[in-house]
Structure formats: structure tokens, C-alpha cells
């Protein structure tokens, strides 16, 4: 890393990290389903970008493959699957209903990001390089913001996007701290993403057929009365 030729890499990675966080906020704040999906795809590209930068920095062909897998599954296959299974949901021009309004949401999202930073700080500063120092807090924040999206959104597809955004966050951490994770694990996690999309897509379709809507946040028949 000390070599002059690669000294710009941490800066590039930090930029990808900043944009990654921005995409996570955009997923929280975007009102339209299609725009939300596009932000998610953008986030996946930024994850791939960070993986590529670290791949060059560490000379790891393995991470370059991770970048390719990420783009293939999250930017190509997953949106394709989603369009196939719940086409009507994606292209509906309605606004996503959510439990809190957008400004309150963004405020809470900012608080979660600070929390992620505070939690990550003692671990990120163990002296393991500039990539970890960026990717660990940003990825953890991405995970929190994704979970927050799942919690406040009522629509089925946006809850799915929240879940997969969490997964992006987890992998944003992984490319920095577990760059040599066994390849079989990377492949099966990618497979898991697609199965999650498929199962949730099919389930959403069934719910649409049986219940007449996909505002899963309003389903509340099961509880102790």
C-alpha cells in the first residue's frame, strides 16, 4: 500500500464508501418503488467498486471475482427475478407507504449511522489498514439502515429491498475484513440472495392474490387478543 502508484486507492475506496452510505439513505428516503430498486442496484455497484479497489490494493484475484459475482447477482439477476415475479408492484407509480414520514425517517437514519460509527470505531481502529477503517463503519451503517427500512416500510417489495440492502452492508464489511473468505461461501451467499428474492417474490404474489394488496405492514390478524 505504501507504493506511490496505489496510494490513491484508499481515497477511491473512501469515495465508494461515502456513495454507498448515500445510496443507503436514498433507499430509506425514496418514495417510489422503481427508484428504490435503482438505488439498490447503485448500492450493489458501489459494493462491487469497493471490492475492485481493494482487489487492486491487495492484489487479490479473489476479490475481483467477488465484484463480478456481486454485479451479476444483485444488479442483473435479482432485479430480473423481481420484475418477473412481481412486475405490477415494481412499476406501480404509487408512493410507498411507510410508518413514519420521510424527514423523521431520515433523522432516525442519521442517528443509526452515528450509532454504527460509534460501535465500529473501537474495532475499525485496531490498526488493520485504511480499507477496514472505511468499510467497517460504512457497512455496519448500511446494515442498520437496511434493517430500519424493513421496519418502517409497509410494502412487501420495499421490505425485501431493505433485507438485501442489509446484505450489501454485511458484504461491504466483508470485502475489507474477510477478503479471502472461501470461494464456495461467496457463491452460496450469492445463491442465497437469489433464493430470498425468489421466495419473497412468490410469497408477495400469493399475498396479492389472496389478500388483494401487498401492504404487508398492515397484516395483523395474528396476535394475542
Amino acid at each position, binding site marked *: 500500500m505504501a507504493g506511490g502508484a496505489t496510494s490513491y486507492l484508499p481515497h477511491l475506496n473512501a469515495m465508494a464508501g461515502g456513495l454507498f452510505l448515500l445510496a443507503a439513505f436514498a433507499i430509506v428516503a425514496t418514495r417510489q418503488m422503481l427508484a428504490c430498486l435503482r438505488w439498490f442496484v447503485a448500492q450493489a455497484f458501489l459494493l462491487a467498486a469497493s471490492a475492485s479497489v481493494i482487489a487492486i490494493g491487495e492484489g487479490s484475484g479473489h476479490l475481483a471475482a467477488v465484484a463480478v459475482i456481486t454485479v451479476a447477482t444483485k444488479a442483473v439477476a435479482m432485479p430480473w427475478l423481481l420484475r418477473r415475479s412481481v412486475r405490477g408492484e415494481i412499476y406501480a407509480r404509487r408512493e410507498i407507504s411507510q410508518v413514519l414520514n420521510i424527514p423523521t425517517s431520515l433523522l432516525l437514519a442519521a442517528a443509526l449511522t452515528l450509532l454504527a460509527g460509534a460501535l465500529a470505531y473501537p474495532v475499525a481502529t485496531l490498526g488493520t489498514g485504511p480499507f477496514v477503517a472505511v468499510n467497517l463503519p460504512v457497512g455496519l451503517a448500511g446494515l442498520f439502515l*437496511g434493517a430500519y427500512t424493513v421496519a418502517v416500510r409497509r410494502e412487501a417489495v420495499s421490505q425485501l429491498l431493505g*433485507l438485501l440492502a442489509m446484505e450489501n452492508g*454485511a458484504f461491504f*464489511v466483508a470485502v475489507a475484513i474477510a477478503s479471502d473468505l472461501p470461494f464456495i*461461501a461467496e457463491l452460496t451467499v450469492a445463491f442465497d440472495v437469489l433464493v430470498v428474492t425468489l421466495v419473497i417474490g412468490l410469497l408477495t404474489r*400469493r399475498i396479492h392474490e389472496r*389478500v388483494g394488496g401487498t401492504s404487508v405492514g398492515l397484516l395483523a390478524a395474528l396476535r394475542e387478543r
Partner: protein
Amino acid sequence: MELAAILLIPVATAGLCLALTRRAAARATVIASALVLALVALVVSRVVARGAPASLGGWLVCDSLGALILALVAFVGLTAAIFSVGYMRHHPSPGGGDRYYALYNLFLTSMLAVPLLANIALVWIAIALTTLASAFLVAYADTPEALEAAWKYVVLTTLGAVVALLGVIFLYWGVRLAGGGPFTWAGLSAAAPAMPPRVLWMGFVLVLVGFGTKAGLAPMHTWLPDAHSQAPAPICALLSGVETTTALYAVLRLFPVLKAAGEGDAQGWFLVFGLISTGVAALLLVYVRDYKRMFAFSTVEHMGIVMVAMGLGDQAYFGAAFQIAAHALAKSFCFFAAGAVVLTAGTQEIAAVRGLIRLSPATAVAFLVGALAIAGAPPFAVFLGEFTILKAGLGAAHYVAAGLLALFVVVAFCAMMRHVNGMVFGEPGRPRAVMALPATCSVALVVAVIPVVVLGIALPGGIDRLLAASAAVLGGAP
């Protein structure tokens, strides 16, 4: 070789089921799961006899604790398959395509894979796949309620799985920072002393919260009673009996790792999480109105009891291992009995079922035995497990924790007995036509009750050694 066959048989059967008629698929599933149980029995007896783990090329490994979980999954897999034959005949598929048995086999495979896979990243995948394979089994009834339950189940447990994924990644990082080594449970314990404690703790807490969600630990348990009450009875037996156990297994595996790292505070975490789960479940059991939800809350209670046992120290590890087995066996039997009551009474509401003993004595006896067994009445296995744990707690001078545990267990017992008493002995309403229990359901009930009774009275030598060896693994013995 047997280790690979244990996973390949149900996968192949899943594919086969898609091509068969429903009747034939049911038979194929029973035969396949009997075969799997036979192979598992072979592997387990070998592990116990040798006192060393069986492994296959570094990919599959089975030590005593893994063998215990494997045996439980295979046993419940067989009884639930037998129960399915008669029970599912009365629940035709409403959603057109009939993939019940194909999904059943995939679900079983994913659970069998959890204790068998060596690499922890792959164990994570197996646990994540248990949810995805069973999602449409939970949604099987295709009612708005079943779909709601399946939705909460998939979204919340997948959310938990992603949190656990980050935890697994942190643990992997820890192994790397400690100088590398295999990313297996044994490798993790070996690397633990050299890991930066902050990395280990970050990994542990994320895995605890993530897989704790899937194991149904309070306060992340909210999806559990929904899913475990809406799924068909044999699936409930698998979900409540062993799926939660496989997720808890992954959390318990980190206990010896923390111990090896000299992080004694871990005991406190297990104790607190366990007591919260047990307490919350005991209170909710008082208010429950659906008897399948009642058994589901009892699962939350029992996951908590095992966690508490881990926190009580050296003497309680045997109790924890015993309790894991006793709960899985008794809970699957309870859900079979609950399925029999559904067939007999046609409702899941506690208040609507009255005087079961006069409607259908056999079903009533099964339900009563199941409820007594799971609530912890002697002479059943759960009683012995709880007694061992409490004794160990008092022996280790954990008076407050043991006292609270005893209180919660008694509250849960009384709450369940009040509900069950009305259902079995209450004044029956209008008499209704009662359906005879399908023969396969009766067979499954009889097979499932045997270990619940036997383990409460005597501990056969082989099982005793298996439990003692599992307890040693939990406690951090090599």
C-alpha cells in the same frame, strides 16, 4: 461416506417427489427419512464408541454435539414424515401445485446439514436455507393468516440471518487476525485465545442476535408463534422441535469459543437472554388462546431454559444437552397431538375445544401426555432436564437465577395445565361427528412418545455417553 449420504438421500428424494403422485411421494419420503435415520444412528453410534468426530474430506464433520443434533433432526424427520401421510390427506393443497413432500425433503436436508457442515460460513447458509425451504410449508394453508405468518417468518428470520452473516464474517476476521487456521468450530476455539477480544465479541453478539431471532429468543420471538401455529402440524413439529434447535446450536457453539478466549462474561449474556425468554414466554402462556400458539410459546420458554443452563456453569452443561434432546422430542410429540386435536375438533381455539376425553379418548390422552411432558411434569424427560439444571444452578450458588428460572417454569406449568384441563376435561358442548385418527398419525404418535417416556425414567448407556460427550463439547473440552 455415510455423512454425505445423509444429505444426498433427502435431496434426491425431493427431486423424486416432484415426479411422483402425492401418495407415492408420501411413501418415498417415509422410506427416505427412515433410511436417513438408520444412517444417522450408525454415525452417532460410531462417534460415541470412538469418542472422536467422524469427518469426510474436511467438508463434513460430526462431533458429539453435532451427533446429538443430527440424531434429533433425523428422528423428528421420520416421525413427522409418518404423521404427514395421514394428516396431509385431510389437507389437500389449496394452491394448485403440490410440492409439500418435495419441500419437506429440502427442509429436512437443510436442517441435517447444520450440524454436519464443517465450515462455519456454510453452516450459516444451511441455517438461512432452513427458512427459505420451509416458507411455503408455513404458507401451505394459503389463507390470509397463513400468508401473514409466512411473511413475518421469512422477513424476520432472514433479517436475523443477515445480522448473523456479519457476525460470521467478524469471526472469520478474528481467525485471520489470530494467524489463520480452518474456519470450523474447532478451528475457532483454537484461534480464540489469540483473537482481539473486541472482534470476537462483535462476532458473538451479532450471531447471538441474528440466530437468536431464528431460535425464537425473546424479544426477537414475535414471528415464532405465528409461523408455528399456522403451518400444518407435522411441519410445526419440525419447526418447533428441531429447526429452532439447529439455530440455537449455532449460538451454543460460540460458548466454548468465548470460554477458550477467557471471556467469562459470556455466561452472563447467556443467563440474561435465557431468563428474558423464559419469563416472557411464561407470561404469554397465561394469555394464549390458541393451543398451537401455546406450544409455540413453550418453545420460546425452552430455548430460554437451555440458554440459562449454559449460564449456570460447569454442572449444568449436561442438563443443557439433556434439555435440548428432551425439548425436541417432547415438542414434536406435542405438535403431533395438537394435529390430532385439529383433526378431531376442527379448531385451534382453546375455548372452543371442551371435553376432548369424551369426544375422542385416544386424542385426549395423547394431548394430555404431550402437555404434561412439555410442561415438565414427572416422569417425563423435560422434568428431569429442568430438575438437573435447577440443581446445578443451586450447586453453583446462582440462587437468584435458579430461583427466577424455577418461578418461570412453575408459572408456565400452571398456565398450560389450566388451558389443557379445560380442553380435555371441560363440559363438552354440542356433540359433533368425530373423525377417526388416520392410522399413520397414531403410529407417529406412538413412535414419538417412546423416547419422551423412556428418557424420563432411564438413561440407556449409549445415550448417556452421547449426552455427556455433548456436554463436554459445550463446556469447551477438546
